[in-house]
């Protein structure tokens, strides 16, 4: 029952301790991780969007430069001049020298006919009138096209512009080198999987991606999710990896530059941090668990021990209280009997007095009367002795303090019993202990205690045996051990041995007061008296007396 109570308490303490230590720890680590992850993600997004911005600027610049040089040429020369193949070739060279990246250059008249052409394809005299870009140029003046296949059946894009002369209009058209352009776009690729590419408004690829995709194939990226300025989006790809996309619109919002990055790859560092944190937190938790269990167990065990000691102490207190109460009762009884006893004694005496008178001298039964009265007196005397013993037991006289040499007291006491012991072949052995200090105590009371113990020992032995007395000095007390090899005290009597009137001796042989008087004397002096006994083997009484140093006179 008690055990279960402790186990329960232990469980509760462990549970509560773990709860209050784990909750804040886990909460803290999760919060810190979350904050850190957030910051880390922010950083990555910022980085990618910065790259998108820079890259889009350089692409815009690339297109602007090429448009500008084409414009300059168109402004500087006339249709007639440009229609000369040599002139056009010269201009083409200048343009490639200055800015580079052109594949071909062509002059187209207002009917759409390719009048002059410098470049690797056989496009001379091709009519562009029905091409969509042709009308865009006509309506806008300057036009940078999306990537398309055109007559050459190769994906490319063009910069075209229209010029008006007095009676006719013409178009100067240049094709941008896809390789050069793609290289430029791709400079924004980073890491093992990072990519940079352009899609048009409708979502068709304008440049090749790093892995796979054909130019002009439809991208599964929806360009409309990207808004003004630089937008960062997060998407899962087919393999379930998280990809970060930074998009920025170019070329009057016709093209979308997309820079992609595998978030998972970037996040590896974060994952490492996460793993580390998990390891630390787990180790911490384990340590807390062990420490909590260990300390709680220790505490509970200590609690259990002190509880047990307390119970023992309580039992002792109850026992000594009981003895004290019994003592008081004995005193009361003794006192009440004392007075009638005195009256009986006096009346008997009076009768004896009267018997001496002459008139009784001739009585037949004078002898019988005298004998009876004598018997009454004898038994009153016997009762008187018992009463005196009881009253002595109850007397609460303060011990009279004097210098007491325990060695001397013991030796004196032994001498009282020596002759009786010798005739019964009992040897009483005591070696005086020179370590024992002189203490302030009551000589006659201590003597009474030892006399009682030795008398009991002698009685317990009966005939043929040994009584060993030994003494020891501890720091604050003296212990005297009286050991006999007599008959011992049955277990069931041991707890009652100090009760008044409890005796194992034959009736009339002992009053049962000796040990209770001794007990009270020792207790009043602040000492203890205990016994150990085994039936048939003997009894050991231990008297402990406090060392009270006598006052220097």
């Amino acid at each position: 029952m008690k055990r279960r109570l402790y186990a329960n308490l232990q469980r509760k303490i462990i549970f509560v301790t773990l709860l209050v230590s784990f909750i804040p720890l886990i909460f803290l680590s999760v919060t810190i991780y979350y904050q850190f992850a957030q910051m880390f993600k922010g950083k990555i997004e910022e980085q990618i969007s910065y790259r998108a911005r820079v890259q889009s600027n350089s692409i815009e610049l690339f297109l602007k430069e090429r448009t500008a040089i084409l414009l300059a040429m168109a402004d500087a020369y006339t249709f007639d001049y440009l229609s000369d193949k040599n002139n056009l070739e010269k201009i083409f060279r200048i343009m490639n020298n200055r800015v580079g990246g052109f594949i071909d250059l062509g002059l187209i008249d207002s009917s759409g006919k390719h009048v002059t052409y410098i470049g690797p394809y056989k496009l001379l005299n091709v009519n562009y009138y029905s091409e969509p870009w042709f009308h865009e140029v006509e309506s806008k003046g300057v036009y940078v096209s999306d990537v398309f296949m055109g007559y050459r059946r190769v994906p490319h894009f063009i910069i075209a512009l229209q010029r008006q002369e007095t009676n006719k209009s013409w178009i100067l058209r240049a094709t941008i080198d896809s390789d050069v352009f793609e290289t430029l776009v791709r400079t924004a690729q980073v890491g093992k999987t990072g990519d940079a590419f352009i899609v048009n408004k409708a979502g068709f690829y304008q440049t090749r991606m790093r892995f796979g995709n054909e130019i002009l194939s439809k991208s599964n990226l929806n360009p409309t999710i990207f808004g003004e300025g630089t937008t960062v989006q997060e998407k899962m790809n087919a393999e379930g990896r998280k990809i970060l996309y930074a998009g920025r619109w170019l070329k009057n919002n016709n093209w979308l530059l997309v820079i992609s990055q595998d978030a998972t790859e970037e996040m590896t560092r974060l994952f490492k941090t996460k793993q580390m944190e998990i390891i630390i937190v787990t180790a911490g938790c384990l340590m807390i668990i062990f420490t909590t269990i260990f300390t709680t167990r220790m505490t509970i065990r200590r609690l259990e021990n002190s509880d047990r000691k307390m119970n023992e102490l309580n039992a002792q207190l109850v026992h000594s209280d009981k003895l004290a109460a019994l003592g008081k009762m004995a005193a009361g009884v003794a006192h009440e009997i004392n007075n009638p006893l005195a009256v009986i004694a006096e009346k008997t005496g009076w009768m004896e007095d009267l018997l001496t008178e002459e008139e009784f001298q001739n009585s037949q039964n004078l002898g019988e009367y005298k004998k009876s009265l004598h018997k009454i007196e004898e038994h009153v005397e016997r009762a008187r002795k018992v009463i005196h013993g009881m009253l002595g037991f109850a007397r609460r006289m303060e011990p009279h303090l004097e210098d007491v040499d325990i060695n001397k007291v013991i030796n004196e006491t032994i001498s009282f019993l020596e002759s009786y012991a010798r005739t019964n072949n009992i040897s009483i052995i005591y070696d005086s202990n020179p370590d024992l200090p002189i203490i302030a105590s009551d000589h006659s009371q201590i003597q009474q205690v030892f006399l009682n113990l030795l008398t009991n020992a002698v009685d317990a032995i009966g005939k043929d045996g040994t009584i060993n007395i030994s003494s020891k000095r501890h720091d604050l007390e003296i212990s005297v051990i009286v050991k006999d090899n007599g008959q011992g005290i049955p277990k069931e009597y041991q707890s009652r041995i100090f009760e008044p009137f409890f005796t194992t001796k034959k009736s009339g042989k002992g009053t049962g007061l000796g040990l209770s008087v001794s007990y009270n004397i020792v207790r009043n002096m602040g000492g203890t008296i205990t016994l150990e006994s085994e039936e048939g083997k003997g009894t050991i009484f231990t008297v402990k007396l406090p060392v009270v140093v006598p006052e220097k006179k």
Partner: protein
Amino acid sequence: MFTFSVLIADDETDFLETIVNRLQKRKIEATGVSSGEAALELIKVKPFDIVLLDVKMPGGMDGIEVLREIKKLQPLTEVILLTGHASVETSIEGLKLGAFDYLLKPVKFAELLEKLVAAFENKASQEQKIRGAKIKEIGRPHS
């Protein structure tokens, strides 16, 4: 045969009566009273050689108080205290206040007689000394 007067104060009347009888039988002038107050009343009227006083009498005056009063009224009267075990300390205090001795109850009669005689002898010798000293001052009824 010398004789002397004894006043016995004890609340236990059976005891009191018997003691008085036994003392009277031995030609001792014995009177019994059952309280301290009665003892004092009697002493005022008639001086006694010895007072046998029970220290503990329930109700009424405390034995020690009675002793004090007796010593005031009759300083030469010897007082012997009768005591139980529980009041030994009180009796020792009584000795300091001028009681001749104390006896533990129940008293053996022989012992009591012995004490009474000793007390009377003590008183007699005291009186002798005082008488010698007082020769010049005869005429004063009370000292």
